[in-house]
């Protein structure tokens, strides 16, 4: 399935194609620099707390080939980082609006499908 490129983000002089909802058109384009650029583009700043969740998201995708909805994301974060961080309040604070969608976007995953 070909994804439409809605716009291009320049990262270190290289064009990165984004779909209409801001997800990467080619998941292989992802790098830590790309994540930072995506965050800056949305007016967000990535702290170490954000990064550890981004790595949990990327690990989830590597294992299951799907971006998680909120519920499994909470569970995955809990398993990886403990009870204190594996809850929706912590994730909502890090990625306001929709942690599953925003997190997937910054982590270079496709849009979560089981999440309306």
């Amino acid at each position, binding site marked *: 399935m070909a994804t439409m490129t809605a716009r291009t983000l320049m990262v270190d002089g290289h064009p990165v194609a984004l779909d209409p909802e801001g997800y990467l058109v080619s998941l292989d384009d992802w790098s830590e620099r790309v994540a930072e650029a995506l965050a800056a583009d949305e007016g967000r700043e990535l702290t170490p707390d954000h990064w550890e969740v981004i790595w949990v998201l990327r690990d989830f995708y590597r*294992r*299951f*080939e799907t971006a*998680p*909805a909120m*519920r*499994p994301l909470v*569970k995955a974060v809990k398993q990886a980082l403990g009870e204190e961080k594996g809850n929706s309040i912590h994730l909502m604070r890090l990625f306001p609006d929709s942690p599953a969608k925003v997190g997937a976007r910054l982590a270079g995953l496709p849009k979560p499908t*089981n*999440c309306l």
Partner: protein
Amino acid sequence: MTDVSISRPVPQDLLVVLRHPPHGTHWLREGLDVALVAAAFGQRVGLLFQGDGIYALLKGQQAGALGQKGTHSQLAMLEMYDIETLWVSARGLNERGLSTDDLMLPVVPLEASAVTELLQRHPHTLIF
């Protein structure tokens, strides 16, 4: 031979019956997607594997030709959605020469009468 559960199965909010094997059609994936969406919304979901749907659980599956995604990674993900109530038709297992050791997830085999009861006792059932 496979041990057959003697305890009564506990009904969930939704029962999804999976009857189609992986790769050939989209039915299995569709059924699993429905189960995952329901679970993402906090519903307790049980899965019943019946007929060729049992092959969905077979160990050692891979992506299909041309890199088409299989359903095994969806199955591995069930636990992350708290879908851990998996039943399988004991007759379907035996007919296919399989035992629970051949399957990638822990399942509870059910005799035919228990399968009947399972459908009777669930408030909502979707068959794929």
